[in-house]
Protein backbone atom coordinates (compact mmCIF):
# COMPACT_ATOMS: atom_id res chain seq x y z
CA UNK A 1 0.00 0.00 0.00
CA UNK A 2 1.18 3.53 -0.78
CA UNK A 3 0.44 6.67 1.18
CA UNK A 4 0.46 10.27 0.13
CA UNK A 5 3.13 12.10 2.09
CA UNK A 6 1.78 12.74 5.58
CA UNK A 7 3.07 16.27 5.46
CA UNK A 8 0.16 17.32 3.27
CA UNK A 9 -2.39 16.13 5.80
CA UNK A 10 -0.20 17.22 8.69
CA UNK A 11 -0.09 20.77 7.37
CA UNK A 12 -3.70 21.51 8.25
CA UNK A 13 -3.11 20.05 11.69
CA UNK A 14 0.18 21.90 12.13
CA UNK A 15 -1.13 25.35 11.25
CA UNK A 16 -3.13 26.21 14.37
CA UNK A 17 -0.39 24.76 16.56
CA UNK A 18 2.13 26.90 14.78
CA UNK A 19 0.00 29.99 15.24
CA UNK A 20 0.19 29.33 18.97
CA UNK A 21 3.94 28.71 18.86
CA UNK A 22 4.52 31.80 16.72
CA UNK A 23 4.53 35.01 18.75
CA UNK A 24 1.16 36.18 17.48
CA UNK A 25 0.84 39.30 19.58
CA UNK A 26 4.43 40.42 19.11
CA UNK A 27 4.59 43.59 17.09
CA UNK A 28 7.62 44.99 15.38
CA UNK A 29 7.98 48.74 15.81
CA UNK A 30 11.46 50.07 15.14
CA UNK A 31 12.77 52.99 17.24
CA UNK A 32 9.31 53.33 18.70
CA UNK A 33 8.07 54.84 15.44
CA UNK A 34 8.45 52.73 12.30
CA UNK A 35 5.64 50.18 12.24
CA UNK A 36 6.59 47.07 10.35
CA UNK A 37 3.92 44.86 8.80
CA UNK A 38 5.24 41.39 9.65
CA UNK A 39 2.08 39.48 8.75
CA UNK A 40 -0.03 40.17 5.70
CA UNK A 41 -2.67 38.51 3.57
CA UNK A 42 -0.87 36.27 1.08
CA UNK A 43 -0.68 37.72 -2.44
CA UNK A 44 -3.21 36.31 -4.91
CA UNK A 45 -0.61 34.28 -6.83
CA UNK A 46 -0.08 32.12 -3.71
CA UNK A 47 -3.63 30.87 -3.60
CA UNK A 48 -2.66 27.39 -4.78
CA UNK A 49 -0.19 27.04 -1.88
CA UNK A 50 -2.90 27.05 0.78
CA UNK A 51 -0.94 29.72 2.69
CA UNK A 52 -3.23 32.61 3.53
CA UNK A 53 -0.86 34.69 5.65
CA UNK A 54 2.70 35.60 4.76
CA UNK A 55 5.05 36.26 7.66
CA UNK A 56 8.38 37.85 8.16
CA UNK A 57 11.17 35.62 9.43
CA UNK A 58 11.22 37.92 12.48
CA UNK A 59 8.27 35.98 13.92
CA UNK A 60 10.27 32.77 14.01
CA UNK A 61 13.18 34.07 16.00
CA UNK A 62 13.67 34.06 19.76
CA UNK A 63 12.57 37.09 21.79
CA UNK A 64 16.15 38.23 22.39
CA UNK A 65 16.94 38.15 18.67
CA UNK A 66 13.68 39.93 17.89
CA UNK A 67 14.50 42.68 20.37
CA UNK A 68 17.77 43.51 18.59
CA UNK A 69 15.77 44.71 15.63
CA UNK A 70 13.50 47.04 17.58
CA UNK A 71 16.06 49.76 18.14
CA UNK A 72 18.70 50.86 15.67
CA UNK A 73 21.20 51.27 18.50
CA UNK A 74 20.90 47.55 19.21
CA UNK A 75 20.82 46.44 15.58
CA UNK A 76 24.37 45.44 14.59
CA UNK A 77 23.37 45.80 10.93
CA UNK A 78 23.19 49.58 11.36
CA UNK A 79 26.98 49.82 11.67
CA UNK A 80 27.16 48.77 8.04
CA UNK A 81 24.56 51.35 7.09
CA UNK A 82 26.88 54.02 8.52
CA UNK A 83 29.79 52.62 6.53
CA UNK A 84 27.69 52.72 3.38
CA UNK A 85 26.96 56.43 3.92
CA UNK A 86 30.69 57.05 3.55
CA UNK A 87 30.75 54.96 0.38
CA UNK A 88 27.70 56.86 -0.89
CA UNK A 89 29.56 60.15 -0.67
CA UNK A 90 32.92 58.95 -1.94
CA UNK A 91 33.86 59.77 -5.53
CA UNK A 92 35.36 56.75 -7.27
CA UNK A 93 36.29 55.77 -10.80
CA UNK A 94 37.24 57.62 -13.98
CA UNK A 95 34.26 60.03 -13.87
CA UNK A 96 35.11 61.40 -10.44
CA UNK A 97 31.57 60.81 -9.24
CA UNK A 98 29.93 59.37 -6.15
CA UNK A 99 26.39 58.07 -5.67
CA UNK A 100 25.62 61.47 -4.15
CA UNK A 101 26.66 63.24 -7.37
CA UNK A 102 23.59 61.84 -9.10
CA UNK A 103 21.23 60.94 -6.25
CA UNK A 104 21.87 63.63 -3.60
CA UNK A 105 20.94 62.32 -0.19
CA UNK A 106 20.35 58.59 0.44
CA UNK A 107 16.78 59.53 1.36
CA UNK A 108 16.17 59.93 -2.39
CA UNK A 109 16.14 56.11 -2.39
CA UNK A 110 12.85 55.92 -0.44
CA UNK A 111 10.61 53.34 -2.10
CA UNK A 112 13.35 51.77 -4.21
CA UNK A 113 14.00 48.59 -2.19
CA UNK A 114 10.28 47.81 -2.16
CA UNK A 115 9.99 47.29 -5.92
CA UNK A 116 13.22 45.40 -6.68
CA UNK A 117 13.93 43.14 -8.54
CA UNK A 118 12.31 45.06 -11.37
CA UNK A 119 12.29 45.36 -15.14
CA UNK A 120 14.81 47.68 -16.73
CA UNK A 121 13.43 48.73 -20.07
CA UNK A 122 16.64 50.13 -21.56
CA UNK A 123 18.63 47.00 -20.72
CA UNK A 124 15.73 44.66 -21.46
CA UNK A 125 16.36 42.66 -18.29
CA UNK A 126 15.15 42.04 -14.76
CA UNK A 127 17.50 43.82 -12.39
CA UNK A 128 18.18 43.23 -8.76
CA UNK A 129 19.27 46.12 -6.57
CA UNK A 130 22.83 44.78 -6.64
CA UNK A 131 22.82 44.69 -10.45
CA UNK A 132 21.60 48.29 -10.53
CA UNK A 133 24.26 49.43 -8.07
CA UNK A 134 26.96 47.80 -10.17
CA UNK A 135 25.50 49.28 -13.34
CA UNK A 136 25.84 52.76 -11.81
CA UNK A 137 29.37 52.00 -10.68
CA UNK A 138 30.54 50.80 -14.06
CA UNK A 139 28.56 52.99 -16.46
CA UNK A 140 28.05 56.21 -14.50
CA UNK A 141 31.14 56.34 -12.31
CA UNK A 142 33.67 54.41 -14.36
CA UNK A 143 34.48 52.42 -11.23
CA UNK A 144 34.96 48.69 -10.67
CA UNK A 145 32.03 46.43 -9.94
CA UNK A 146 31.58 45.34 -6.38
CA UNK A 147 31.53 41.63 -5.65
CA UNK A 148 27.89 40.59 -6.00
CA UNK A 149 27.37 39.26 -2.48
CA UNK A 150 30.37 40.95 -0.86
CA UNK A 151 30.54 43.31 2.10
CA UNK A 152 30.47 46.60 0.15
CA UNK A 153 27.37 45.52 -1.71
CA UNK A 154 25.60 44.18 1.37
CA UNK A 155 26.24 47.45 3.21
CA UNK A 156 24.99 49.59 0.32
CA UNK A 157 21.87 47.43 0.05
CA UNK A 158 21.29 47.98 3.76
CA UNK A 159 21.56 51.75 3.35
CA UNK A 160 19.11 51.69 0.45
CA UNK A 161 16.76 49.34 2.29
CA UNK A 162 16.64 51.55 5.39
CA UNK A 163 15.14 54.36 3.30
CA UNK A 164 12.09 52.16 2.61
CA UNK A 165 11.56 50.57 6.01
CA UNK A 166 7.87 50.19 6.72
CA UNK A 167 6.84 50.47 3.06
CA UNK A 168 5.11 47.43 1.56
CA UNK A 169 7.10 45.12 -0.70
CA UNK A 170 5.48 45.38 -4.10
CA UNK A 171 7.40 43.66 -6.88
CA UNK A 172 5.82 43.03 -10.28
CA UNK A 173 5.03 39.45 -11.27
CA UNK A 174 3.51 40.22 -14.63
CA UNK A 175 4.20 42.07 -17.86
CA UNK A 176 7.82 41.97 -19.01
CA UNK A 177 9.02 40.16 -15.86
CA UNK A 178 6.53 37.31 -16.26
CA UNK A 179 8.91 34.79 -17.89
CA UNK A 180 11.63 35.38 -15.31
CA UNK A 181 9.09 35.16 -12.48
CA UNK A 182 7.90 31.80 -13.86
CA UNK A 183 11.49 30.59 -14.00
CA UNK A 184 11.95 31.61 -10.37
CA UNK A 185 8.81 29.78 -9.38
CA UNK A 186 10.01 26.64 -11.12
CA UNK A 187 13.31 26.85 -9.23
CA UNK A 188 11.47 27.32 -5.94
CA UNK A 189 9.68 24.02 -6.39
CA UNK A 190 12.60 22.03 -7.86
CA UNK A 191 13.96 19.43 -5.46
CA UNK A 192 17.73 19.40 -5.54
CA UNK A 193 20.71 17.54 -4.22
CA UNK A 194 21.17 14.22 -2.53
CA UNK A 195 18.63 15.21 0.13
CA UNK A 196 16.16 15.98 -2.67
CA UNK A 197 14.57 19.05 -1.07
CA UNK A 198 13.14 22.22 -2.62
CA UNK A 199 12.63 25.64 -1.07
CA UNK A 200 8.99 24.62 -0.70
CA UNK A 201 9.91 21.41 1.20
CA UNK A 202 11.17 23.53 4.06
CA UNK A 203 9.61 26.99 3.76
CA UNK A 204 6.16 26.17 2.38
CA UNK A 205 5.37 22.69 3.73
CA UNK A 206 7.21 22.96 7.02
CA UNK A 207 7.42 26.55 8.24
CA UNK A 208 6.70 26.67 11.93
CA UNK A 209 8.29 23.23 12.40
CA UNK A 210 11.69 22.59 13.89
CA UNK A 211 14.47 21.13 11.78
CA UNK A 212 16.97 20.23 14.47
CA UNK A 213 17.57 23.52 16.36
CA UNK A 214 16.18 25.73 13.59
CA UNK A 215 12.65 27.11 13.68
CA UNK A 216 11.70 27.07 10.00
CA UNK A 217 10.31 30.35 8.68
CA UNK A 218 8.65 31.03 5.35
CA UNK A 219 12.03 32.04 3.94
CA UNK A 220 10.88 35.59 3.19
CA UNK A 221 13.39 38.17 1.97
CA UNK A 222 11.68 41.42 3.02
CA UNK A 223 14.26 41.71 5.83
CA UNK A 224 17.38 41.52 3.68
CA UNK A 225 20.18 42.20 3.91
CA UNK A 226 20.13 40.46 7.24
CA UNK A 227 22.65 40.61 10.06
CA UNK A 228 23.20 37.05 11.29
CA UNK A 229 24.47 36.43 14.79
CA UNK A 230 25.92 33.19 13.45
CA UNK A 231 28.48 34.84 11.17
CA UNK A 232 28.40 38.37 12.60
CA UNK A 233 27.97 40.15 9.29
CA UNK A 234 25.39 41.31 6.80
CA UNK A 235 24.15 38.55 4.51
CA UNK A 236 22.72 39.09 1.05
CA UNK A 237 19.74 37.29 -0.44
CA UNK A 238 21.85 35.32 -2.90
CA UNK A 239 24.29 34.22 -0.22
CA UNK A 240 21.34 32.88 1.78
CA UNK A 241 19.92 31.06 -1.25
CA UNK A 242 23.32 29.53 -1.83
CA UNK A 243 23.53 28.31 1.75
CA UNK A 244 20.09 26.75 1.67
CA UNK A 245 20.76 24.90 -1.60
CA UNK A 246 24.14 23.75 -0.34
CA UNK A 247 22.32 22.27 2.64
CA UNK A 248 20.40 19.96 0.30
CA UNK A 249 23.78 18.47 -0.72
CA UNK A 250 23.38 20.03 -4.16
CA UNK A 251 25.55 21.96 -6.55
CA UNK A 252 24.50 25.57 -5.90
CA UNK A 253 24.08 28.44 -8.33
CA UNK A 254 26.34 31.48 -8.01
CA UNK A 255 25.34 34.82 -6.50
CA UNK A 256 24.30 37.08 -9.36
CA UNK A 257 23.46 34.18 -11.69
CA UNK A 258 20.36 34.38 -13.88
CA UNK A 259 18.84 31.56 -11.80
CA UNK A 260 19.24 33.42 -8.51
CA UNK A 261 17.93 36.67 -10.04
CA UNK A 262 14.80 34.78 -11.11
CA UNK A 263 14.49 33.05 -7.74
CA UNK A 264 14.89 36.39 -5.95
CA UNK A 265 12.08 37.93 -7.98
CA UNK A 266 9.78 35.01 -7.22
CA UNK A 267 10.62 34.82 -3.51
CA UNK A 268 10.28 38.62 -3.18
CA UNK A 269 6.80 38.36 -4.72
CA UNK A 270 5.77 35.86 -2.04
CA UNK A 271 6.39 38.70 0.40
CA UNK A 272 4.35 41.34 -1.41
CA UNK A 273 2.45 43.18 1.31
CA UNK A 274 5.06 42.69 4.06
CA UNK A 275 7.08 45.76 5.02
CA UNK A 276 10.62 46.32 3.90
CA UNK A 277 12.49 45.49 7.10
CA UNK A 278 16.21 45.39 6.27
CA UNK A 279 18.68 45.30 7.70
CA UNK A 280 17.02 42.68 9.88
CA UNK A 281 18.60 40.57 12.62
CA UNK A 282 18.49 36.78 12.53
CA UNK A 283 20.44 33.97 14.13
Amino acid sequence: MKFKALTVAALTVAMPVMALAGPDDDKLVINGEIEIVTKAAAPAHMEETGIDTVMSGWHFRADETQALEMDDFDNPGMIFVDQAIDAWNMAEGSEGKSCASCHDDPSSMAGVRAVYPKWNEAAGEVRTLAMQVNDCRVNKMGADKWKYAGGDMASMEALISVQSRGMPVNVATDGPVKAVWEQGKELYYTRTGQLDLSCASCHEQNYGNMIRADHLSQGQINGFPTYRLKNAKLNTVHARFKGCIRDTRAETYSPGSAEFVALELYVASRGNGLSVEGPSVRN
Partner: protein
Amino acid sequence: MKLTYLTVAATLVAGSAFAAEVGPKEVKYNDDTAIEMSLTGVAGDPEKGAVIMATKSKGNCVACHEISALSAAFQGNVGPMLDGAGDRWSVGELRGLVVNAKMMFEGSVMPSFYQVDGFTRPGNAYTGKAGQEPLAPLLSAQEIEDVVAFLATLKDE
Protein backbone atom coordinates in the same frame (compact mmCIF):
# COMPACT_ATOMS: atom_id res chain seq x y z
CA MET B 1 56.83 -6.27 -1.12
CA LYS B 2 55.00 -6.32 2.13
CA LEU B 3 52.77 -3.47 0.97
CA THR B 4 51.71 -5.25 -2.18
CA TYR B 5 50.84 -8.34 -0.23
CA LEU B 6 48.70 -6.33 2.19
CA THR B 7 46.92 -4.51 -0.62
CA VAL B 8 46.01 -7.79 -2.29
CA ALA B 9 44.73 -9.20 0.97
CA ALA B 10 42.71 -6.05 1.63
CA THR B 11 41.17 -6.18 -1.82
CA LEU B 12 40.17 -9.80 -1.28
CA VAL B 13 38.47 -9.02 2.01
CA ALA B 14 36.73 -5.94 0.63
CA GLY B 15 35.72 -7.91 -2.45
CA SER B 16 34.07 -10.69 -0.51
CA ALA B 17 32.27 -8.28 1.82
CA PHE B 18 30.98 -6.48 -1.20
CA ALA B 19 29.67 -9.59 -2.88
CA ALA B 20 27.42 -10.43 0.07
CA GLU B 21 25.94 -6.94 0.09
CA VAL B 22 22.81 -5.84 -1.71
CA GLY B 23 23.90 -2.70 -3.60
CA PRO B 24 21.78 0.47 -3.90
CA LYS B 25 20.73 -0.53 -7.42
CA GLU B 26 19.82 -4.10 -6.44
CA VAL B 27 17.37 -3.60 -3.59
CA LYS B 28 14.06 -5.36 -4.18
CA TYR B 29 10.82 -4.06 -2.77
CA ASN B 30 7.87 -6.31 -1.98
CA ASP B 31 4.57 -4.66 -2.78
CA ASP B 32 6.54 -1.39 -3.26
CA THR B 33 6.95 -0.83 0.46
CA ALA B 34 9.00 -3.48 2.24
CA ILE B 35 12.48 -4.87 1.72
CA GLU B 36 12.39 -8.26 3.39
CA MET B 37 16.00 -9.28 2.81
CA SER B 38 18.81 -7.90 4.95
CA LEU B 39 21.15 -5.72 2.90
CA THR B 40 24.20 -7.44 4.38
CA GLY B 41 23.19 -10.72 5.96
CA VAL B 42 24.81 -9.43 9.17
CA ALA B 43 22.37 -8.68 11.99
CA GLY B 44 22.07 -4.97 12.74
CA ASP B 45 23.37 -3.58 16.04
CA PRO B 46 20.65 -1.42 17.64
CA GLU B 47 23.14 0.48 19.81
CA LYS B 48 25.12 1.55 16.78
CA GLY B 49 21.84 2.39 15.06
CA ALA B 50 20.89 4.76 17.88
CA VAL B 51 24.21 6.57 17.51
CA ILE B 52 23.86 6.84 13.73
CA MET B 53 20.38 8.31 14.07
CA ALA B 54 21.55 11.03 16.44
CA THR B 55 24.79 11.88 14.61
CA LYS B 56 24.65 14.90 12.33
CA SER B 57 27.14 13.56 9.79
CA LYS B 58 25.36 10.17 9.66
CA GLY B 59 21.60 9.63 9.70
CA ASN B 60 20.76 12.90 11.48
CA CYS B 61 17.23 11.50 11.79
CA VAL B 62 16.70 13.68 14.87
CA ALA B 63 16.81 16.73 12.57
CA CYS B 64 13.26 15.81 11.59
CA HIS B 65 12.06 13.22 14.14
CA GLU B 66 11.62 13.08 17.88
CA ILE B 67 12.66 9.82 19.52
CA SER B 68 12.24 9.67 23.30
CA ALA B 69 14.82 6.88 23.61
CA LEU B 70 17.55 9.15 22.26
CA SER B 71 19.04 11.88 24.41
CA ALA B 72 20.12 14.08 21.48
CA ALA B 73 19.29 17.76 22.03
CA PHE B 74 17.07 19.67 19.60
CA GLN B 75 15.02 16.93 18.00
CA GLY B 76 12.96 18.27 15.12
CA ASN B 77 9.33 17.75 14.16
CA VAL B 78 9.26 17.89 10.37
CA GLY B 79 8.43 14.18 10.45
CA PRO B 80 6.30 12.18 12.89
CA MET B 81 7.57 11.10 16.30
CA LEU B 82 9.19 7.68 15.97
CA ASP B 83 8.22 6.26 19.36
CA GLY B 84 6.32 3.06 18.65
CA ALA B 85 7.66 2.78 15.08
CA GLY B 86 8.55 -0.84 15.83
CA ASP B 87 4.87 -1.57 16.53
CA ARG B 88 3.58 0.28 13.49
CA TRP B 89 5.93 -1.25 10.92
CA SER B 90 7.47 -4.64 10.19
CA VAL B 91 11.26 -4.92 9.93
CA GLY B 92 10.93 -5.14 6.14
CA GLU B 93 8.85 -1.97 6.06
CA LEU B 94 11.31 -0.13 8.31
CA ARG B 95 14.14 -1.16 5.98
CA GLY B 96 12.09 0.06 3.03
CA LEU B 97 11.44 3.39 4.76
CA VAL B 98 15.08 4.10 5.49
CA VAL B 99 16.28 2.99 2.05
CA ASN B 100 13.71 5.11 0.20
CA ALA B 101 10.76 6.55 2.13
CA LYS B 102 9.21 7.80 -1.12
CA MET B 103 8.22 4.21 -1.95
CA MET B 104 5.85 4.26 1.01
CA PHE B 105 5.10 7.98 1.19
CA GLU B 106 4.85 9.46 -2.27
CA GLY B 107 6.59 12.83 -2.47
CA SER B 108 7.99 12.62 1.07
CA VAL B 109 10.58 15.17 2.16
CA MET B 110 12.45 12.37 3.94
CA PRO B 111 15.74 11.76 2.09
CA SER B 112 16.53 8.35 0.57
CA PHE B 113 19.44 7.01 2.54
CA TYR B 114 20.57 4.35 0.07
CA GLN B 115 20.28 6.19 -3.23
CA VAL B 116 23.31 7.01 -5.38
CA ASP B 117 22.03 8.59 -8.57
CA GLY B 118 19.07 10.20 -10.31
CA PHE B 119 19.42 13.48 -8.38
CA THR B 120 18.90 17.02 -9.69
CA ARG B 121 22.14 19.00 -9.37
CA PRO B 122 23.88 16.41 -7.18
CA GLY B 123 26.51 18.01 -4.98
CA ASN B 124 29.74 16.93 -3.37
CA ALA B 125 28.38 16.53 0.16
CA TYR B 126 27.85 19.97 1.77
CA THR B 127 30.45 21.86 -0.28
CA GLY B 128 27.96 23.38 -2.74
CA LYS B 129 30.21 22.07 -5.52
CA ALA B 130 29.12 19.57 -8.17
CA GLY B 131 29.25 15.89 -7.24
CA GLN B 132 29.79 12.98 -9.56
CA GLU B 133 27.10 10.30 -9.66
CA PRO B 134 27.04 7.63 -8.44
CA LEU B 135 27.42 9.40 -5.08
CA ALA B 136 28.19 7.44 -1.94
CA PRO B 137 24.86 6.62 -0.28
CA LEU B 138 24.02 8.67 2.85
CA LEU B 139 24.29 5.48 4.90
CA SER B 140 26.13 2.23 4.15
CA ALA B 141 24.26 -1.08 3.94
CA GLN B 142 25.37 -2.10 7.43
CA GLU B 143 24.53 1.32 8.89
CA ILE B 144 21.01 0.91 7.51
CA GLU B 145 20.76 -2.54 9.12
CA ASP B 146 21.89 -0.98 12.42
CA VAL B 147 19.27 1.78 12.16
CA VAL B 148 16.55 -0.71 11.29
CA ALA B 149 17.54 -2.86 14.27
CA PHE B 150 17.18 0.18 16.54
CA LEU B 151 13.85 1.25 15.03
CA ALA B 152 12.51 -2.27 15.63
CA THR B 153 13.16 -1.79 19.37
CA LEU B 154 10.89 1.31 19.49
CA LYS B 155 7.79 -0.35 20.95
CA ASP B 156 5.13 1.15 23.17
CA GLU B 157 5.01 -0.91 26.32
